[in-house]
Every structure is written in structure tokens, then in C-alpha cells.
């Protein structure tokens, strides 16, 4: 998928992954999440290989993928409550998460009645419902309206101000101050002529 790829993220840092379709943006995020083991190379956190303690690594990250992972029969509040309990963090962050993404008035509705944009907002609210220092966002802006974009960018700015880290795959030029960019098209393996 890619080779000779080397990068690091400092506290408060952001990394924007760009590149054409199929260049491996999602694969790199999944690799950073520990879902896919790297074929070659290593992933480290504070100088310690992630593979040594996968559970600790999972505790410090959120991955928001293409799928919203919502259950039609659970309510919005239950979805976030489950997410917090699953990650063993206190449920106190759930009301904040609902408010930040303007879902408070939908809290008691089952997910099946939500629109695509509302589902996306709920999937993003999940990362606020249980705090974690590393956010891996895969095309998070799909289906979001302008107001929700502002909510997302505000949440990202707060997260980074607190020393949180972010890796985001996106096609939209997002206003992320001091963000590094990784254009994955440049790291495509050179195919030997055959």
C-alpha cells in the first residue's frame, strides 16, 4: 500500500492525510488504530512499540470510520452511554457530547429515525462521550452541514488545545492551524517493471 513512510505526532498536533482514492488513507488510520498489523515497520507511542500493549493503545484512541456503527433500536443517549461504558470512562461526558453536536433534543429518539447527517453527528459525538488523546477520523465531514462542520472544527480545536492529537483523512481543505500534511500518493510502492 505504501512504503518509506515515516511521521510523528506531537501533543496538540494534527496530521491531515490526503491522496487519491485507494492511496491508503483509511488503511493508514486502521494501521494506526492497531486493527491491521503493519507488514513491515513499527508504530510507537512515547517511544514504546504499540504492539507491546495493544489494550493500552486502544484505550487512548478513537477511530471514526466510514460506518456510523449505530443500532436502529437504541436511542441517541443510550448509544453514547454504551460507548462511554464500553470504554470504561465516566458517563459525565455524555451530556457534553450531546450538547456539542446539537443532539440534546434528539437524545430520546431511536437511531432509526435519524437522518444521515444526524447519524454522522452522533458517530462523532461518540468521541466526546469518552475522552481519548488520539482521534483518528476517516472522512468525518461526509454528510455534515455547515453548522455541524463548525461544531466539529470547534471540538477538534478544543481537543488540540488540551494536548490531544488528531489524524484525519479528508478531501476537503479544512482550516486546521499548524497541521502537518501527509500526501499518501507520494509513498506508493514503486512497481518494478514486469
Amino acid at each position, binding site marked *: 500500500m505504501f512504503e518509506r513512510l515515516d511521521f510523528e505526532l506531537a501533543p496538540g498536533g494534527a496530521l491531515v492525510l490526503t491522496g487519491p482514492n485507494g492511496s491508503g488513507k483509511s488503511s493508514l488510520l486502521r494501521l494506526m488504530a492497531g486493527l491491521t498489523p503493519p507488514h513491515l515497520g513499527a508504530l510507537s507511542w512515547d517511544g514504546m512499540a504499540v504492539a507491546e500493549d495493544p489494550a493500552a493503545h486502544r484505550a487512548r484512541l478513537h477511530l471514526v470510520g466510514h460506518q456510523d456503527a449505530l443500532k436502529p*433500536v437504541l436511542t441517541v443517549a443510550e448509544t453514547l452511554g454504551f460507548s462511554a461504558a*464500553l470504554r470504561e470512562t465516566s458517563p459525565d461526558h455524555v451530556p457534553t457530547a450531546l450538547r456539542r453536536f446539537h443532539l440534546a433534543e434528539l437524545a430520546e429518539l431511536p437511531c432509526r429515525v435519524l437522518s444521515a447527517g444526524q447519524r454522522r453527528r452522533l458517530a462523532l459525538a461518540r468521541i466526546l462521550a469518552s475522552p481519548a488523546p488520539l482521534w483518528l477520523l476517516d472522512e468525518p465531514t461526509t454528510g455534515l452541514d455547515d453548522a455541524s462542520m463548525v461544531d466539529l472544527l470547534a471540538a477538534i480545536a478544543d481537543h488540540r488545545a488540551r494536548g490531544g492529537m488528531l489524524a484525519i483523512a479528508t478531501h476537503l481543505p479544512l482550516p486546521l492551524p499548524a497541521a502537518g500534511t501527509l500526501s499518501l500518493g507520494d509513498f506508493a510502492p514503486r512497481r518494478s517493471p514486469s
Partner: protein
Amino acid sequence: MTAFRALVMRDLRLALRQGSDAALVVAFFVLAVVLFPFGVGPEPQLLARIAAGIVWVTALLAALLSLDRLFEQDYEDGSLEVIALAPLPLEAAILAKCLAHWLTTGLPLVVVAPALAGLMQLEAPGYLPLVVAMALGTPSLSLVGAVGAALSLGARRAGVLLSLLVLPLYIPVLIFGVAAVEQAVAGFATRPYLLILTAFVLAALPLAPWAAAAALRPALE
């Protein structure tokens, strides 16, 4: 422990609100057993002779019916990925899902079994061993089934593949479950058979989640 409980509660809540899966399993169990008197004739001696076997075989098939849903829905909507990325080990998450699966399908089968055994004219000494044997045997069905469900995840015609994978593994539970009831009816001790069923479930408790997690990880890559 919070995460384990949250996962069990979520699966129970999903099962109760969707309702259909658990109810289908019990309905299949009842209907399939009721078919036998029509098929083999209503003579009480004949039915009593085959009662234990019929109830057990039908229970195995009913348990099988719900297995393909164990991971499939979570896999398709992305929830399985969220669960796999939680700090909770995947093995523990699978154990939680098996527990919820047993509570919503295995336990109702145990509760309905005596009534169906009555329909099949099972003799009086057989009832208690039947219930105990099923209570000990059905958790093994959920646990072993989880391995099959994990292996067949994402495959085409997963349900058929799952049956082929899992049914042979159910045979020991079937043999000792039926033997416990028949020995009781014949006036012999049932304890050895129940102990063997206990041994099965104790072996499956650590081994099945471990094997299922190993089968799920490649599907999540």
C-alpha cells in the same frame, strides 16, 4: 467489568427490542417437536422412547438458527470494529456476546423443554435430568457456535457453512445430554453424564472465546 456488563446489557436490550430472533428460535423449537407425533404416529410408547433424542436434536437445530446473527449485524454496521477498539480484550467481548446469546436463546429453550417433553410422553424421572442437562449443555452450544459464527463471518451463504462447521461439534453435547435423560428413565445414575456436560462447558468457556477472537481478527483487518 463495566464494559463487559455494558456489552451484555446492550445485546439483551437489542434482543428485547427487536424481539424477533429469540421468539423465532423458541417458535421453531416448539413447532419442530410438535411435528414428530404427526410424522411417527401418536403411540405413547414410541414417543416416550424417542422423546429425549427429539427434544435435544431439535434444541440443537433451534440454537443453530440464531447463531449467524451473533456477529453479523455488528460486523455489517461497524459496531464490531468499535467493540474491537475498546480496551476490553476481544475475548472478553465475545464472552459477553455469548452470555447475552445464551440468555436470549439458550435459556428460553431450557424453560420450554419440559413442556415439549411432556408432549412427547417423556416418563416422569426424565424431567429433572432433562432440564439440568439442557441448562449445562446449552451454554456450550452458544460458545462453540460463536467460533463457527466468527469463522463464517462475511462468507457467502454463511448460514449453511455455519451449520456444517458447528453441527459436528455439537455431537458430544447431544450424546451425553440424551444419555442423561435415558439413564434416568431406565433408573440409573445421571451424575456422570451431567459431570461430563459440565466439563464441556468449563472447557468451552476459555477456549471458545479465544478461538472466536482469533477468527474475528482477520475479518476486522
